[in-house]
């Protein structure tokens, strides 16, 4: 008896809310992306279906829903059907521990952070299964690339989450939000926040890290063989669901969760999620794609050492000044960022163009242009 009432009062609302959030993100964000992308490209984006094009996602969903369900003949049918379901577990399960408001969390785990990290790894599985089960070389290559990339970028993500745990003193997400009553952790540890964003973008397989679904090379990578509604599953529900839960986790860990200026409510959480998703869309429209070896070397050679050092420094400050360690941490982080902004853009360009500049100086050319138009040597 109690289990049925448990089911009705605890499980079903939570399940419905989780599914609703994912569905809402699958409706809102692709449309937002297409409109914003259009504005950045000096065009309008879809604005015909409904007022300002707001019904466009429903039209797209309906179109994909009524398409023929094609499974490749040689594909492993069970795994082929299972892959989207496996990949959907990450967005669904991760919402269980996010505090939506001061008194509502679906499951108040006291090891919430470990749970977040563990559940985040399921999306790798889903993509790998999809790539293998499609019986297609392109999909296989896409799936393998995705697995390598996502595993590499889990590590800076985890290290940064540990920093948040250190700053809070607890692994429970409710306590994390409670600890941000005076100042957000993003202001204390901006370096950590930026690492979280970069590693998250790589985890989500978005540009500039979107090699697994590189459209111009692999014809859609691991979801080449998925058509119709299964494609909508991958491209809308799972992809944007992952973005939403990553943004939710990020807002909770770094931006104060449901906290807002006058009152705390889920509205502020939604606003922060929306802004983080807009940043992802902005990255998509601006950057080209990174090459697989550059991607991996960036993760292993730059991000992981950086986040390890960050973690070590934070731990050191907590040991040295157990009562007010927030200030030294903030000073260190902000100075890192300041150094970065001052020196990095020029430095990377200089390193990459060093040989070129040396050659230019040797040949005493000021630009890459030479030669004149006066000609006509015709005899």
């Amino acid at each position, binding site marked *: 008896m109690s289990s049925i009432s448990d089911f009705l009062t605890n499980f079903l609302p939570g399940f419905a809310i989780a599914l609703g959030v994912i569905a809402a993100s699958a409706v809102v964000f692709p449309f937002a992306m297409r409109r914003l992308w259009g504005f950045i490209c000096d065009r309008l984006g879809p604005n015909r279906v409904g007022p300002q094009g707001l019904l466009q996602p429903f039209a797209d969903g309906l179109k994909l829903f009524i398409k023929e369900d094609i499974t*490749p003949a*040689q594909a492993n049918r069970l795994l082929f059907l299972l892959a989207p379901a496996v990949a959907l577990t990450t967005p669904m399960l991760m919402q269980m521990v996010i505090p939506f408001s001061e008194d509502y969390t679906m499951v108040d785990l006291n090891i919430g952070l470990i749970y977040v990290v563990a559940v985040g790894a399921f999306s790798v599985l889903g993509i790998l299964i999809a790539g293998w089960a499609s*019986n*297609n*070389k*392109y999909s296989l290559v896409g799936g393998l690339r995705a697995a390598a990339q996502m595993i590499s970028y889990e590590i800076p993500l985890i290290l940064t989450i540990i920093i948040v745990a250190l700053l809070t003193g607890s692994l429970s997400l409710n306590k994390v939000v409670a600890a941000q009553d005076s100042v957000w952790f993003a202001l204390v540890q901006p370096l950590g926040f930026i690492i979280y964003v970069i590693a998250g973008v790589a985890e989500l397989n978005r540009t500039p890290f979107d090699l697994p679904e590189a459209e111009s090379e692999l014809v859609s990578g691991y979801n080449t063989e998925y058509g119709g509604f299964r494609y909508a599953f991958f491209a809308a529900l799972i992809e944007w669901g992952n973005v939403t839960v990553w943004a939710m986790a990020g807002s909770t860990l770094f931006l104060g969760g449901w906290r807002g200026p006058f009152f705390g409510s889920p509205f502020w959480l939604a606003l922060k999620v929306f802004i983080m998703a807009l940043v992802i869309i902005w990255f998509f429209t601006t950057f080209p794609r990174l090459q697989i070896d550059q991607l991996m070397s960036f993760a292993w050679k730059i991000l992981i050492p950086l986040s390890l050092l960050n973690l070590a420094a934070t731990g050191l400050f907590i040991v040295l000044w157990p009562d007010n360690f927030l200030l030294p941490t903030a000073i260190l982080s902000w100075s890192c960022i300041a150094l970065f902004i001052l020196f990095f853009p020029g430095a990377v360009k200089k390193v990459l163009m060093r040989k070129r500049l040396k050659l230019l100086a040797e040949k005493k050319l000021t630009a890459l242009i*030479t*030669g004149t138009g006066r000609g006509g*040597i*015709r*005899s």
Partner: protein
Amino acid sequence: MTAEVLKLTAPEVLEHARELLGKLALDLIISDWHVVIEVGPEDLPEAALRLRDDKKLSCKYLSTIIGVDYEEWMETLYMLRSQDHSVPVRLRVKLNREQPEVPSVAYIWSGANWHEREAYDFFGIQFQGHPDLRHILTREDLDSFPLRKDARPHRKRRRSGQVTGIEEPVRLPGEPDKRERS
């Protein structure tokens, strides 16, 4: 590499080529500021090598290889240019129409590889010593040569609407036999 372009005129180039090639050149004329040198098929590699390696002429750039079918004979033309002077040099080889064979210059200019394949594809000119002579622009198993003057359409369409003469294409080397996804 800003080249010093020599102000060579076409007659100068012609004289220099004449003394360079000596007996190899059957005929040298100037045809609207190009120097046209005619060589025999067997002498072609030697003449080409000399033209390419000469310090003054240095025809390092092969523009294209053209096959022409005059009805009594066939011809291959090699359009050469140099970075050092602005007089283009044309090499002309007259071939027997029944059995058009000429040594390949693919090892002299690497770009000649594909141009010779195209000449073979369209005319059936056999380039001896070519590493990989096969059709390039038409079907891999086409057995006629389209640009010859006596080429006829490949397919015959009968009155009943039945189309004949189409076979299964040949697989490329490296392509497996079974039907594969990608």
